[in-house]
């Protein structure tokens, strides 16, 4: 996965080109600027939006929901995944069912969440949790299964306690898979929360984006899109960076 300076330059070039095309399409009027405000206008609007207290509040609301849902879904999902993977019988029974659950688009359950939780914090967190937990469970079972029996036997033959086995064998074996799971779970989590906000909400950045769209405020809408995209990419890249540092031994 090492990429030379040439590859990196090409990537930057593509990004710059995309923004340039965007700018040109809008400025020359090839695409109606009311439908597609220029890139520079959008970025300006973005910096303007970030100054606004109301937008910051929306971001804070969304961030709280995202973090809460994630902080609940990851440990709960990991625990369930671990228990399933450690027990042959549970694994045989539960795995196909999990695949069933995973294959259903979670968005169709959103109206039910609104009926049960009302419109508010609990509905967002609940739906984010629900969107995330299946992928966490499945990834954790994969992570546990990636622990080699040979390594466990070695630990046992040198008299490792269960605690030592957990921290010196299970954890390092599972870490690369777990970090990848964390990254992908966050994508599901973020999608779930934003969707819940767009569908029915009084606040949150997803709600704002939906409102800007409905009111045909294209500059604000595009700025919101760029903002969410940047936040999601930043988190993803951060975990990916940790991932490569922790899994250099996986070749």
């Amino acid at each position: 996965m090492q990429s030379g300076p040439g590859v990196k330059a090409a990537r930057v070039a593509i990004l710059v080109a995309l923004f340039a095309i965007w700018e040109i399409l809008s400025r020359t009027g090839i695409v109606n600027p009311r439908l597609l405000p220029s890139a520079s206008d959008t970025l300006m609007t973005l910096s303007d939006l970030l100054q606004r207290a109301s937008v910051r509040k929306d971001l804070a609301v969304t961030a709280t929901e995202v973090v809460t849902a994630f902080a609940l879904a990851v440990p709960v999902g990991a625990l369930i995944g671990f228990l399933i993977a450690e027990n042959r019988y549970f694994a045989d029974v539960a795995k196909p069912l999990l695949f069933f659950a995973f294959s259903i688009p979670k968005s169709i359950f959103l109206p039910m969440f609104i009926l049960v939780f009302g419109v508010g914090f609990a509905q967002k967190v609940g739906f984010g949790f629900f969107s995330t937990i299946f992928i966490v469970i499945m990834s954790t079972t994969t992570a546990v299964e990636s622990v080699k029996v040979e390594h466990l036997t070695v630990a046992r033959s040198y008299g490792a306690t269960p605690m030592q086995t957990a921290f010196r064998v299970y954890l390092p074996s599972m870490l690369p898979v777990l970090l990848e799971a964390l990254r992908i779970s966050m994508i599901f989590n973020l999608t779930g929360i934003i969707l819940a906000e767009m569908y029915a909400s009084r606040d949150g950045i997803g709600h704002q984006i939906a409102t800007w769209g409905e009111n045909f405020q294209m500059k604000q809408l595009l700025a919101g899109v760029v903002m969410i995209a940047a936040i999601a990419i930043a988190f993803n890249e951060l975990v990916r960076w940790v991932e490569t540092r922790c899994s250099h031994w996986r070749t």
Partner: protein
Amino acid sequence: MQPLANITLLKPAGAIEVRNVGQVFKTTTQDVVALEDVSLDVKPGRFVVLVGPSGCGKSTLLMMMAGLRQQTSGTITISGAPIPEPDPNRVGVVFQEASLFPWLTAEENVEFPLALRGITKSDRRARAQDALKLVGLDGFGKRHPHELSGGMKQRVSIARGLVQDPPVLLMDEPFAALDEQTRMTMGDELLRIWAATGKTVVFVTHSLTEAVYLADEVIVMSPRPGRIVDHLQVSLPRPRTYEMLSGDTFGSLRDRIWRHIRKSA
């Protein structure tokens, strides 16, 4: 540690006694007899090879000597005491190639057994260095397993088995995944290490040539149920040389083992 010291007064360290050992695996449909009435004496400092076709229980027997598995009947003692659970002070185990931890360096792998005992970092490092030097890997300590060849990885495994200086070294098909040349070289290396340390070695293999080449004694086992069918003394002088492979003594020992194995296959 204290009781072990007392026991070693009665029995020399490194002696292995296997008495009427049986192992039955219970499955949902039937009971499989993996080992039946196996008895065996290994004197301290001997190099004993267990050989036989798949399913003869040679690895099972080794795992029981390591305390990794308990027999259904009979007794096993190492240095005079039973081994109800793994005891790295009495027994070091060397597994097949995949047994090194890929996220640790060579020296960290060797230090692993010491780290479990809470031995200080500097002490650990010093003992790992000695063990790596002994197996001919001086200067390779900082490499990760994926940066080492198959033969080097097995040297690291042997160093890990020796780092606590146990009187007994159990080896479960340690060279099975290696190519033929590396395998021969590693055999010579193992004999050198064995001569230098005076350990009791019990070595499991599929290879008849490897068995005769390495061993003082070869135990031939046969499956269904797993049992000992022959116990050969290899009278070839040491150090063993490549030329011995084509000699009459070597050939007749190899043939004798082969006849047993052909019968049971």
